[in-house]
């Protein structure tokens, strides 16, 4: 029983990270109708920014984190401007290949700058005391991860539903041309979406660093792909779906590690990707996604 509760808590913690990343995928997909394959690598960039600013440049922890968030947002905007914007209207196959190219570019730039070895994640100075519930102890970093994720999600939901910019984002994702005719600056809205998605990825990298303690150039790709799985699971384009999917995949992964790995070996990835394939085949729109009828 204790194992189950511990596993669930770990799953929610991991799921929080996935959810933060999945939000980036789902927002960009909703607005630009493209799969931003490089999104996972933005997490890696965020983690390396924290490493560079705090470990190498000895910034105070909060400033390091802030720099990381700002840097990732700018990076998101730059990527969109240089690589994706010129391809608007091109076949989705070509856009996806470009996104894969960007993903590789980021990984290999990091490899060139920092080398292939692991780097320790610095202490950001964020210290949350552990919580002893009697039957189980919840670690501080887990509490921090979950609380941060919940706060960011609430903020995002409020932003999208209550602000003018948020409404513009929803309008663009519904119908780009109509939104343009209504006087919405579509380019700026898309840039903003990439910036917000990337900023969330930077927060995800903070949580990831606290939980996994080391980083390397390929750090972002696996969580990236799993988070994409989460976004698809929840229904791509749907923000609550991304949150739901993130927690779902996180818990699934931890449950599998706790209960299946001891019997069948390290096949967690098989289960997670198996779920992805089954989900895509059985219900391509995900749990909360909208069904789109193809126009003939």
């Amino acid at each position, binding site marked *: 029983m204790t194992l189950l509760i511990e596993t669930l808590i770990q799953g929610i913690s991991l799921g929080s990270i996935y959810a933060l990343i999945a939000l980036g995928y789902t927002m960009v997909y909703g607005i630009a109708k493209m799969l931003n394959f490089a999104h996972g690598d933005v997490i890696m960039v965020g983690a390396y920014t924290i490493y560079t600013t705090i470990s190498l440049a000895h910034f105070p922890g909060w400033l390091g984190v802030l720099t990381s968030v700002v840097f990732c947002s700018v990076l998101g905007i730059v990527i969109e401007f240089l690589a994706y914007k010129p391809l608007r209207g091109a076949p989705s*196959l070509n*856009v996806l*290949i470009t996104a*894969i*190219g960007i993903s590789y*570019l980021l990984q290999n730039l990091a490899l*060139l700058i920092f080398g292939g070895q692991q780097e320790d994640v610095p202490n950001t100075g964020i210290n949350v005391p552990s919580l002893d519930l009697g039957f189980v102890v919840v670690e501080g970093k887990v509490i921090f991860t979950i609380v941060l994720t919940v706060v960011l999600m609430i903020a995002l939901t409020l932003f999208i539903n209550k602000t003018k910019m948020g409404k513009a984002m929803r309008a663009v994702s519904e119908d780009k041309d109509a939104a343009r005719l209504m006087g919405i600056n579509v380019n700026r809205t898309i840039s903003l979406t990439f910036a917000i998605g990337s900023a969330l990825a930077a927060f995800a990298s903070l949580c990831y660093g606290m939980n996994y303690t080391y980083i390397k150039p390929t750090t972002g790709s696996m969580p990236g792909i799993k988070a994409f799985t989460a976004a698809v699971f929840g229904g791509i384009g749907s923000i609550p779906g991304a949150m739901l999917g993130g927690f779902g995949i996180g818990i699934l992964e931890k449950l599998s590690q706790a209960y299946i790995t001891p019997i069948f070996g390290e096949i967690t990835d098989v289960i997670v*990707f198996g779920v992805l*394939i089954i989900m*895509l085949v059985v219900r391509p729109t995900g749990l909360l996604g909208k069904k789109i009828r193809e126009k003939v």
Partner: protein
Amino acid sequence: MKNMLSKINRKDALTLGVLVAMFLVFFVVLSTGMASNQLKNMIIPMSYYILLAISLNLMVGVLGELSLGHAGFMSVGAYVGCYVAVTLVEKYPSMPLAAYLPIAMVIGGLAAAAFGVIIGIPALRVKGDYLAIVTLAFGEIVRTLVQNMSVFGGALGLDTGDIRPKNTALTLLPFTAAVVILSAILIMNLVRSKHGRSIMAIRDNRIAAEACGINVNFYKVAVFGISAFFAGVAGVLYGHNFTIIKPETFGFNMSIEILVMVVLGGMGSNMLGSVVAAVVLTVLPEILRDFQDYRMLIYSVMLVLIMLFTSAPAFAGIRERLSLGFIKEKLTAKKKAKKKSKEGDGA
């Protein structure tokens, strides 16, 4: 009309000519001992990369579906085919390469094709970006499963030392040449046929293709199977060229490397580009050893730039001006104008 038919064949003939010439050169340099060790080690990889690139081009360039799991199909072929070969050699130690290699290739290829069909059928319900992700997930699943299968040596890998021939490159070359050339012929035959046209029609406009009586599902699954088959054969070649096959070799990175070859060579019905790109991208990093660190970086930049150049709407004008068709059109327009003026003179 005849002129045009022979012209289409000419493209394929050129591809074949290049392949034959290439293998002849390989044979000469290897048998005369002219080849440096470096070149020797590159010849077989070059060949299986050619096979991988043209089979992926069938999928991406001709059918128009992005596969990010080509290395997964290759690994199925490599593991199953080489396992068969290892077992055969264990049982009948005197069995010659000429006997077990073809058997391994056929079985490895069929195993990969079976996986191709298995992943192809659910993939029918999934389109575009999602399909790419399904193939990616498939590649990762295969890799993880193999890592946990003790039959295949698990994470340590499958020992293929016993089936790898001595003087590897020269001994494998005739088989490799035969397989690559035969595969290229088969794939090009398919592309330039009724079925090839149907597949390209699906790529260009699925809805119109259906309305023209094309069984889209059948062709998609068929291309998955065929493309996977040849990737599997390439995997068997790979296994015979090294003393061990490890699951992590066939990761996402390798799928991307093959994809870069296809994109660089030009996606579409002409396979020559894929062949040349496969050769160049295998040779270049070996020649520029110091460049090794930059290899994937350059690949990624290349991918992005090629994509931007070939498909950004903003560059459409430049593309048109650079295309051969445009130049030809201009030339024929001039000729026509001359003809007309001559006719005018005559009258």
